[in-house]
């Protein structure tokens, strides 16, 4: 069984060429997509749906940097820390709470646009910092660096959640 990187003819590495990934993805779908089997037997149609779904899943996994990192760590056999671990990191928890407060206050701000922009700027810069660390740690690829990477990854997921919350808030504020 090929891993997702091999499936797309890529080196198993965190830094990938997204254009190459996208090209390989389309090339593979040209052979496996159910539309190519619309006139084939039911058996082949079923098989095409399966293969095509796997290729889609592989593509989504590699396209998204956090999912890609998680997948690499899984391939390297790194055990992901449980959700519980997050509650032991007090400094990080505090920071998250502050950010949440900042998001909650946007609604009451005089200038909502400016408040949203500020929240986004803070979130983006902290995300970027962590992300750079993640890249470095994954490139080092030692048992210790992988363990650290998985810890950073868990933090990045928190930031991703916050970003989604800001998106949702923005939609609410500007809808109806």
């Amino acid at each position, binding site marked *: 069984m090929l891993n997702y990187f091999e499936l797309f003819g890529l080196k198993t590495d965190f830094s990938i060429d997204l254009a190459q990934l996208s090209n*390989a993805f389309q090339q593979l779908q040209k052979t496996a*997509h159910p*539309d190519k089997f*619309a*006139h084939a037997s*039911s058996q082949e149609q079923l098989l095409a749906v399966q293969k095509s779904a796997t290729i889609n*899943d592989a*593509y989504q996994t590699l396209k998204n940097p956090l999912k890609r990192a998680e997948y690499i760590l899984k391939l390297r056999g790194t055990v992901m820390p449980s959700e519980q671990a997050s509650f032991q990191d007090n400094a990080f928890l505090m920071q998250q709470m502050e950010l949440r407060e900042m998001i909650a206050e946007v609604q009451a701000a005089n200038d909502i646009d400016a408040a949203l922009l500020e929240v986004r700027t803070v979130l983006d810069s902290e995300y970027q910092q962590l992300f750079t660390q993640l890249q470095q740690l994954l490139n080092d690829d030692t048992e210790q660096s992988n363990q650290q990477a998985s810890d950073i990854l868990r933090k990045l997921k928190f930031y991703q959640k916050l970003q989604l919350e800001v998106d949702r808030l923005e939609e609410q504020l500007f809808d109806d």
Partner: protein
Amino acid sequence: MALLQIAEPGQSTVPHEHRLAAGIDLGTTNSLIATVKSGLAQTLTDEQGRDILPSVVSYQESSILVGDNAKGYAVSDPQNTIVSAKRLLGRSLSDIKQKYPNLPYQFVGDENHPSIQTRRGVVNPVQVSAEILKALVERAEKSLGGELTGVVITVPAYFDDAQRQSTKDAAKLAGVEVLRLLNEPTAAAVAYGLDSGNDGVIAVYDLGGGTFDISILRLNKGVFEVLATGGDSALGGDDFDLLLVDYLIEQTALTRPLTNNVERQLLKQACFIKEQLTSHEQVSVTIDLPDNKQTQITVNKSTFDGLIKSLVAKTLRACRRSLKDANISIEEVNEVVMVGGSTRVPLVRSEVEKFFNRKPLTSIDPDKVVAIGAAIQADILAGNKPDSDILLLDVIPLSLGIETMGGLVEKIIPRNTTIPVAKAQEFTTFKDGQTAMMIHVLQGERELVDDCRSLARFELRGIPPMVAGAAHIRVTFKVDADGLLQVSAMEKSTKVEASIEVKPSFGLAEDEITQMLKDSMANAKEDMQARMLKEQQVEAKRVLESVQSALATDGDLLSAQEQEAITKALTTMVQVAQQGTVAEIEAAIAEVDKLTARFAELRMDSSIRDALTGHNVEEI
């Protein structure tokens, strides 16, 4: 370098027969059918030369009228004349009543399965849609002089699972084979993509009679990859009409409730005003008042623009969200395509142009572009273009999830995931000895169950009794290339496949469709049998063709013994297909399938590997 193709021994050298296929735009207000004739996609007309079939069905004493013939009855016989049935598909009664409080129909049936009482009995929206499909297919078969192999039917990209399923059910009732349900904006992109031949990012803004879609696609060497889609499946030009009706009522000092005939008359006038205002600054209409009086009202363009402004703004918000989902900035959009009759409204055009900062493409008739794109895809899917480079990679428009504790929704497949897709999630029991589990499937973006759309409820039975938390129930969501969902479940440790009872929240259950099909046939039993027999014969033919060509190209993957066994099973199947019963043919096909299962998988894996090696060589 071109290589001569040499036919392997045993491989058919006969060129592929041309199969008749068509694309159908099943619209809220209007429907069309198109096909590819001598390489050119074109819409098919009726005997009067009209290509647009109004999506109106009228149930009269002696006959069921469809299209222009039915439209005449919309005002005089509103209760028996169904217009815009698409807006009712896969909807609950309270949904409908809340959104369209002034419909003239007499609704019957329960909350989640509303039907309409007509003089010819009770009909549901699926049956109404089936009548429109039948009329279109009949037109095509007459015009093309043969039976259609299959059709591609377009649906709004933002249609949810219940609405898609209802559309497919309508086709089943109409007796047509659906090659694919295709999203309307994607179909439009195909029609334009072939025209311009330009690679890049396309935004398709599709405002029809009853639905709004926005799709962001990337076109690359024939592959149309949908990056994100969004919209509103209950927002369209009809809503512009309804706002105008309210305005007319206000201006004429009429008060609701009004009779159905007055409502329909006002609606007709509103539609006329809207159309006139696309090319005039103002328009005057004469309204017949209930007391045999008349009054004249003038509406100018700025008044109309003021009425619809907030609706247009709503569509632009959806555009913004989709661009964000696609991770594409406005500057990166290379083309904007306008689809749907409602994009003729000048305010819509100017606002879209302002938003994207680019003049939208309108060169293909916005009423026909979807049907034309669907026809191109139907031609490919029917197998008429084996060397075609075109591939459409679409997404699901709304997240799919299940209900968890506390009335919350856990998303299993997020919106804008490329289809087909399969995702599994594990759950466990929370009581000792629990043997059954209820799974509630939902679609939507919100966190609370009540804010999402209920698709179905599944009851898993036969979970082996264990202590709480010990059972691992793996629930798999599969979305096929039509965007339709299938759910299955299995207890992992014991591999017990839990039995599932599906109760769709909206639309029709499988057995209801079968019953309706039977009811619609004069000699129900014989006709059903004949139909099933034909379906199995067609399947046998497909199996024969694909296995034969597989043996011819990749036979060397098999041992001589395996080849012999397969050939023997094929011969039996061909014989059985000629004289056997439905069950016998099914069994013969199953035998071939069993013998070729590994072979089919080997072939597909090797072609996937080859695809990339070929690609890499080309790149280097």
